[in-house]
Structure formats: structure tokens, C-alpha cells
């Protein structure tokens, strides 16, 4: 099985689903010839043409709303939101429309659409192009939210999302597009939404990590191993549905848990997951569940400032070491 980049795995998933189902179309800014700013969709227009890989005006609320209607009327649109920060522009379509239509119609209308948005800082892109806003849709009943961390998961989760009858928001870490590589089967597989994955088995501490933070946790685990701490890394893969069972079981086994996520700390994904673990594993824990997340500031431009806003391997290592009393 060849190693493939995170971005290439996403392109592969889209191509497979578009071959399988003619109702799947891609909508977004510069998605066709340019293949997006990140070049992730490069080449898809050659195979599927500009009637299915559709360049839009810079009208995020407009084309997201259009996707909602198209999904209700029988299509399977996949919307590309170049920077996750622009989620702020489409929230009405996603939150008040897509998320609620199935419920409000008593289950009569379905909205099978996917929004692919990016996330992640550390690219010196400043406050309006660096946020990780996945906690927002995770808060809303009716939406599903996926956060792949590996090429394998990126392909499988995206395929599952496209086949799902609900609106699914997928967050893709920008740096991972080219930096993270891994094996990706050519087969037609899906990763079901709501199933966590143990990225590393361990005995001493559970590190729950999402998206970009999985690589950080893996780096920290290697450092921890050198001082005799055996960390287990659990990747929930979707923030909703959330695989509470796997999270709790891991924490009960290791008796210590830390949650690491690139979104804001306050009122965020780490808080939710920590409380799930605290409630489910309370009597087996040696101490409180700890959290690491983005610093509570708009992401600054200057490298010296930006570098202290996102959890690092060192931060995870230091906190894990304290938690394990080593």
C-alpha cells in the first residue's frame, strides 16, 4: 500500500465518490482549474468537468445555502470553505437551515451535504485565517462534525460523510495537507462517523487528541517513552457523534487523561471531552482530567507570538509528566 499525503487522500475520496454517484458535485472558490488555494482538488475538474467541479463567486453564504437546497432536492453537494474562519459567514445556512430542516419537517426532508473547511494555525496567516472553529458546529443538534488526523481517516471519513443523509462538517488541518503522509488503501472503504481510533496503545496515561494535535501527541508520546511513561493516544475522529465508550474505557485503563485540541480552550471541545471522561471514568482516575487548547487570543501574526498560542509536543510532555508524577 503506497504512502499518500493527507491532501491526496482527500482528493482520492472525492474522485471515488464522484465516480460512484453522479449526484456528488463540488462547489467553492477556485476549486476547478486552481484546485483550491491548497491545490487539494487539483485535477478533479479534468475528470469530472466544470459542471461537477464548480467555481463559485466569493459568496460563501450564497453557495452554502444553494447546497442546502440542492441536497434537499436530490443532490449530494460538497462545499469547499477555503479557510475555516469563513464558517462565520455561512453559520446561518448551516445552523438555522441545514441542521434543523430534518427535525423541523418531522423527518420529511433530508439535507445530505458536506462542508469541507480548513483549520489550524502556525502558518503566519494572522487572526482571520488561522482559527479552528470546529467547536461551533459540534454544539448544534442536527450536525455531524469530523476531524481526520491521518490520510487513511481523511479518505474514509469523507466518503462516509458524503454517503450520510445529514449535513456533515469536516475540518481539515492545512499543514497536514502536505506534511502528514500515511498508507491509504485503493479500496472502497469508509470510516464510520462516531468511532474513535487508538492511534497508539499505552498503559500510563490517555492522551485524547484531535486533528493536528494527533501528530503533536505522537511526538510527545515518543518523548514520554524515553522517561518511562507509556502514553495511549485516542483520536475521537468525530466530535459528534462522539465515541464516548472508547474514551472512557481508555481513561479507566490508564487512570489518567489529558485532552488536546487546537480549538479554543474555553467552552470548547476539550471541555466537553474532559467532562465525558470525568463522568464516565471518575472512580478509576488518579486525578482530574487536564486540557490543552489554543490560547484564548485572536491568533497573532508575529511568529514569536503565534508560536505560544498552539499546544506543542513540549507542552504535552510537560503536563503528562506532571500528571504521572515523574
Amino acid at each position, binding site marked *: 500500500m503506497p504512502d499518500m499525503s493527507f491532501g491526496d487522500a482527500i482528493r482520492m475520496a472525492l474522485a471515488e465518490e464522484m465516480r460512484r454517484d453522479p449526484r456528488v458535485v463540488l462547489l467553492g472558490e477556485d476549486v476547478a482549474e486552481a484546485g483550491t488555494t491548497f491545490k487539494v482538488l487539483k485535477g478533479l475538474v479534468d475528470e469530472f468537468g466544470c459542471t461537477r467541479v464548480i*467555481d463559485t463567486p466569493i459568496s460563501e453564504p450564497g453557495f452554502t445555502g444553494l447546497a442546502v437546497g440542492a441536497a434537499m432536492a436530490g443532490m449530494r453537494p460538497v462545499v469547499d470553505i477555503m479557510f475555516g474562519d469563513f464558517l462565520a459567514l455561512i453559520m446561518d445556512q448551516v445552523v438555522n437551515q441545514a441542521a434543523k430542516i430534518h427535525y423541523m419537517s418531522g423527518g420529511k426532508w433530508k439535507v445530505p451535504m458536506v462542508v469541507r473547511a480548513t483549520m489550524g494555525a502556525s502558518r503566519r*496567516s494572522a487572526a482571520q485565517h488561522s482559527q479552528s472553529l470546529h467547536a461551533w458546529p459540534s454544539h448544534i443538534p442536527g450536525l455531524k462534525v469530523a476531524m481526520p488526523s491521518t490520510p487513511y481517516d481523511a479518505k474514509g471519513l469523507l466518503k462516509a460523510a458524503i454517503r450520510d443523509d445529514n449535513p456533515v462538517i469536516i475540518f481539515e488541518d492545512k499543514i497536514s495537507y502536505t506534511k502528514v503522509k500515511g498508507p491509504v488503501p485503493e479500496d472502497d472503504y469508509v470510516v464510520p462517523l462516531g468511532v474513535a481510533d487508538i492511534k497508539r496503545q499505552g498503559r500510563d496515561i490517555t492522551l485524547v487528541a484531535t486533528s493536528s494535535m494527533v501528530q503533536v501527541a505522537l511526538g510527545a508520546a515518543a518523548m514520554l517513552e524515553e522517561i518511562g511513561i507509556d502514553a495511549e493516544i485516542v483520536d475521537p475522529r468525530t466530535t459528534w457523534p462522539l465515541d464516548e465508550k472508547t474514551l472512557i474505557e481508555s481513561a479507566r485503563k490508564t487512570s489518567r487523561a489529558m485532552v488536546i485540541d487546537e480549538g479554543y480552550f474555553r467552552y470548547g471541545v476539550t471541555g466537553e471531552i474532559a467532562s465525558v471522561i470525568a463522568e464516565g471514568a471518575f472512580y478509576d482516575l488518579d486525578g482530574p482530567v487536564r486540557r490543552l487548547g489554543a490560547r484564548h487570543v*485572536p491568533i497573532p501574526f508575529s511568529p514569536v507570538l503565534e508560536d505560544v498560542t498552539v499546544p506543542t509536543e513540549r507542552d504535552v510532555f510537560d503536563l503528562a509528566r506532571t500528571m504521572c508524577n515523574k
Partner: protein
Amino acid sequence: MSADAERFVRMYRQMVAIRFFEERVNDLYTRALMPGLAHLYIGEEAIAVGICEALRTDDYITSTHRGHGHCLAKGASPHLMFAELLGKEAGYCKGKGGSMHIADPATGNLGANAIVGGGAGIATGAAFAAKFLEQGRVAVCFFGEGALGQGVLYESMNLAQLWTLPVIYACENNLYNEYTHCSETTAGDMLARPRAFGIDSEAVDGQDVRAVNTAAVRLVERARRGEGPGFLLLDTYRYRGHHVGDIAREYYRSKQEEQEWVTGRDPIALHRAWLESKGLMGRDAFERIDVEVAAEMDAAVEFAMKAPYPDPSRVDEDVYA
């Protein structure tokens, strides 16, 4: 020199300043000395210069991701701009904003914006305040034709015309929304859009700094007299990539097209030829400007390179007022 002649020379110098500034930005990027990316204004200088020449220091502007030209034309210091671009403490935003977020209350700059169309509400709101507070100020909202896709622009223009607000919408039509031609993203006649609200709207050759200035003066004076908003549609071209890293561009626009604008419609060359033909400036004067501006920009880069980074502890400051 007459006041008019001084103005024409000043506009020439300011366009050269923007171009030299941007060439140094590109150089810093290419030498990996600047963090992140930047969107260069080279080729579009006449718009910022022609419009800002019609403004007072206390008038407002909102700017865009391609904003260095607007900031400089409104009176920003190249020293503090370069410092910001390099993420230094001495920069306009203490290193927190970077290339896409330069803001400067002293020159009425409400801020550059990395959200396409993000300035529409802000500029209109500043105009609302200027009217409410009876300050006689006007606001100019710069944006690229890509922002014509954003609904907030139309909501803002409707409010501005309804409430007779002193705001000028300056649409810089450089033909491309990133890598897609505007004809693929914009239905109908661009100018018909503001006109549908009854806004006084005009199409202008954005490479002709004098034409831009004349149109801007008319709309600014009108707005200042309390007669409401204006809209300028300015044809222009960005010579370089969408951002400094956009080097291979032939899949979306031809080298020939680029060459035609660069050689045939360069705003600096056109204005220079006009100044010469009117006998307002000669070869020596142009050379002197080049030398002086180059020295100023080099000094600004040097200042920024030597300036210290902020202390990481400053990261938590400024979140709240």
C-alpha cells in the same frame, strides 16, 4: 509650481513609493525574511493614490488583503509598515496584525481586512458616525471586484443611500478573484448594481491617476456636502501573482495579457509621460524621486530588520480594551 502641479508631482512620487515598497516586500519574501504571505499592489497604484489625494487626513478608509498601497497613500509610515510585515514590536499593530491587518487611527485607516468584503460594513458605519457626529468626514471603502460576490456589500450600500451617508465605494476591478476571471463570477453589469440603489456611480480608468483623482474629488465633495454615497468602478490589473507565492500563472491568465498591461497601461509610466509632455518634470526630477524614494524604502527595511520582536508575554495583551 502651482497647487495643481504640486499635486500631480506628489501623486507621481506616491505611486513610485508604493511600487518600491512592494518590490521590497517581494524581495523579503523571496529571501525568506518575511513570515507568511503578502498580496502586492503593483500595477494598481493609481487608484489608492488618486483617491487618497482627494481625502483629508481625518477621513476614513477601509482596506483589503491587498492593502499596502491604500495604507501608504493614506499617509502610513513605511518604517512602521515594514516592521509590522516582519512581525516586530515597532509595527503598526505591534506585530499582531501583519500584512493583511495594518490599521492606523492617526491617518484614518480603520484597518486592512482579510475577509473579502469585510470592510463594507465598517466603512459605512464610519460614515454613519461622521454624519451623526457632524464631523464632515467621509469614508472610502476599498475592495476588489471579488467582493461584489458578498451580500454584506449590498446591504451596506442600501443603508448608505437610504441614510445619505458620506461613503465612497471604490471597486478595484483587476479582473481576477484569485485565480478565476471575474466574468465567471459576476453576472450582468457591475455598475448597474450600485445604480440600482440610486448611488452616484462612475466607471474610471484605474491606470490614469488624474482621472481617478478627478472622479474621487467629485464624489468626495458631494459626500462631504451631505449628498450621499458614491461608487467608483476602477479598471486595473495586478502585475504579479494573487500573492507573492503565485508564480506559475499561465493556467489562469496569459503572459501576453500581463505584458500588455505592463507595457501599455502602467500607471506610473503613463503619468510620467504626461508630466514630461506638460513640462512639469524632467529627467533629473524623475531620477531624483527614484533615488530619494529608494533610499527611504531601504532605510525602512533596515529599521524593520533591526527592530526587536515583541516579547512572547505580550500575546495576552490587547484582547480586550
